[in-house]
């Protein structure tokens, strides 16, 4: 009896999932994991010879396994509850918030970051006012005695040393762990009041107080949520807007169309943070038709800038956002729309995770 039951209990699931796997249509993407899933590989003699064909089959079968999402949750539950692991997929939960662990400074990456930015500025414009800010990841605000963290002081001082000719605007004191989404690495726009004030003060911008209207869109599931089991609900993305922002136009160089600063419908994208300036874009030009100044700003940036820059729109006639992860610094000379000569301010706004893993910057 026991032997027959054992065979049934082991071979049963094997045959069941085998059949389901064959019958199940392939999913294109996993919203939970925010990535495209592997599709059935195409056969070629070359792919057989270099062993990539069957390797892709492995990925395909794993990605398309029936109830993949549920199995991933099961793994997380076992890891955290049975194995008492503190982290899962390099993410930890402290109180009601998720944090990505990052303990080691990647020196080569930091060097690459500073050298690339310096070279780019040297090439295109060194006469503008050049400012830079480093955005700490939220792990910075956790207890040093329990959670292993980067040596932030060392990292910042290294960058300060390399960027000594530019003006540093520290934002470390203007943020707290509550400034970030619980399930995401990004900061929340409503929590950037002090950041904005500091930037405006240091960059010599006006101290005009604008009237803002608060808008909300939900649910927002951050990038960290799917990497560790948790009971944190979908969050709300709150943003501020006004007539100036609503009337500003954003020219998307890659897509070659004009779009709005905020796009509520993007909450349904793989990354809901795309609500701000349509997410990952190599090059954006924001024109402020109501500008009372002729100042122009170029921001070399990562995704954190998407939610901050809208608040700077009233201060400039034109803002150019360049994301070197998606456009090469060498290519910039071919982009005639970038008005290097009339640019008054350049802001380098990068988060520590990108600085410490900057190889995608070209």
């Amino acid at each position, binding site marked *: *009896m*026991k*032997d*027959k*039951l*054992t*065979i*049934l*209990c*082991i*071979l*049963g*699931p*094997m*045959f069941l*999932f*085998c059949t389901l*796997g064959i019958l199940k249509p392939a999913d294109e993407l996993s919203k939970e994991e925010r990535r495209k899933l592997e599709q059935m590989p195409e056969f070629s003699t070359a792919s*057989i*010879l270099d*062993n990539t*064909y*069957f390797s892709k*089959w*492995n990925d395909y*079968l*794993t990605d398309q*396994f029936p109830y*993949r999402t549920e*199995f*991933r949750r*099961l*793994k*997380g539950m*076992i890891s955290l509850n*049975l*194995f*008492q*692991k*503190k*982290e899962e*997929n390099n993410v930890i939960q402290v109180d009601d918030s998720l944090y990505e662990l990052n*303990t*080691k*400074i990647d020196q080569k990456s930091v060097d690459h970051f500073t050298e690339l930015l310096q070279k780019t500025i040297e090439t295109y414009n060194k006469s503008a006012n050049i400012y830079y800010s480093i955005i700490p990841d939220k792990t910075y605000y956790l207890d*040093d*005695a*329990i*959670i*292993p963290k*980067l*040596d932030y002081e060392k990292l910042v001082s290294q960058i300060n040393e390399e960027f000594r000719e530019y003006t540093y605007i520290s934002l470390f004191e203007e943020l707290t762990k509550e400034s970030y989404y619980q399930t995401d690495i990004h900061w929340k726009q409503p929590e950037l009041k002090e950041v904005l004030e500091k930037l405006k003060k240091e960059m010599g911008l006006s101290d005009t107080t604008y009237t803002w209207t608060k808008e909300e869109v939900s649910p927002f599931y951050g990038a960290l949520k799917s990497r560790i089991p948790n009971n944190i609900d979908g969050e709300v993305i709150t943003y501020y807007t006004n007539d100036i922002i609503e009337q500003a136009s954003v020219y998307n160089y890659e897509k070659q169309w004009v779009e709005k600063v905020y796009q509520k419908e993007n909450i349904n994208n793989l990354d809901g943070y795309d609500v701000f300036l349509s997410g990952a874009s190599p090059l954006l030009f924001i024109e402020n038709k109501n500008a009372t100044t002729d100042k122009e700003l170029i921001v070399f940036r990562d995704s954190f800038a998407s939610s901050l820059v809208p608040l700077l729109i009233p201060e400039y006639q034109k803002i150019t956002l360049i994301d070197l992860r998606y456009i090469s610094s060498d290519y910039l000379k071919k982009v005639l729309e970038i008005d290097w000569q009339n640019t008054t301010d350049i802001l380098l706004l990068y988060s520590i995770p990108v600085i410490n893993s900057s190889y995608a910057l070209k």
Partner: protein
Amino acid sequence: MVFSSIAFIYYFLPLCILCYFLVPTRFRNKILLIFSLFFYFYGESKYIIVLIFSCIFNYYSGNFILKYPRKKKLILIANLIINFGCLFYFKYFNFFITNINNLLNTELPILQIIMPIGISFFTFQAASYVIDIYKGKVKPAKNVFDFATYLTLFPQLIAGPIVRYETVAEEMENRTTNVQMISAGLKKFIIGLGKKVLIANLLGAFATSLEALTAPTVLSFWLKALAYTFQIYYDFSGYSDMAIGIGLVFGFHFLENFNYPLIAKSITDFWRRWHISLSSWFKDYVYIPLGGNRLGIKKQIRNILIVWLITGFWHGASWNFVIWGLYFAILLILEKFIWQKFLDKHKVFAHISTFILILFSFIIFQTESLNDIFLTFQNMFNFDLPFTNVETNFYLSNYVVILILAFVGMGPWLKKLYSKIADSKIGKKVLVVVEPIALMALLLVITSFIIDDSYNPFLYFRF
């Protein structure tokens, strides 16, 4: 193809089992051969030709030895030269060229050679087949397909255990399987898979985390050595369990390859328990033919050194493996001639000191650079380093349960507890239902870890 993959567990294995049991008995070896060749082709497509060559070449070598008894020595020598020549070419050629270049300051070209997976295992199996025919210990396989089925049998093809033909000769021609064997085989497979996926992989990740510490500590060096020792044990013994289990499903009785080696009471005892199929291969085909311990102490020491030099070298074309082999040779010689009696008298000390010596051996095993080996040993006793720090503590607490599981699983204690429960009246009744369900739950948990895990190497593949 690796056992711990969705492709194997949920597609290859059930389809193979289905086809195997659907066809008449006389076609079963052919089914196993087809599936085994596909298994190898899936992971190492272009080198399938090397495997097929080995099947044909060794089958006919065995036949020629019987057919031409006067020239059998010549045939054997030619066979061994070609078998080990292939192994040398794929595994050791570049190592020797590199060392010649370094030594003589020459610039001999390094070839772009990728080693066929499992070549060390199937070469040793093939060689033992031909040697055993030469010695008259076994009869040749009935036909080339039966021999190819034996040599390519997918459960043990790429990472052992090294199954000698004599072990399965009879079963190749005539074997039966029944519900008890299939059940026991599947159970062993699932437990082996669990050892690999739930313990070895996680402790491998632990070792990797410790390797990447910003500020290593004395404790982190010790933990890394411990994590790696457990990882390699659970990885390899898990693989062997899976191989033996699948073999049993198809009616083969492979010999056990591990017998709780980490609780050994001496290094001699350790090698009776660790990778048994390899150590017994070297004993029977190298140590004893060299004279073993029958020709006096000096020659015995020489023989031990030769065997362990080759054992080390078998594991990889790198100096750390040579040192690893010699490390064991020296310990075995010292044990045999100096401190075995002391160990016999002090059992607790014997177990602890053996465990620590094994731990040290795997530092040499896993560290390719000789300088890094030295630095690791230095740091393990470098009390200028902090003993621990936040990072070390964090990762220790992150993996402490897995470490405890690994400690508990390294001895026969769970097996004894299981037997005790199974022997009791109530336990026996409860296990009828609980055991199959627990195994199914284990399979599903393992599946969840495979689906969501990027860290899934098989350490012994590279050998």
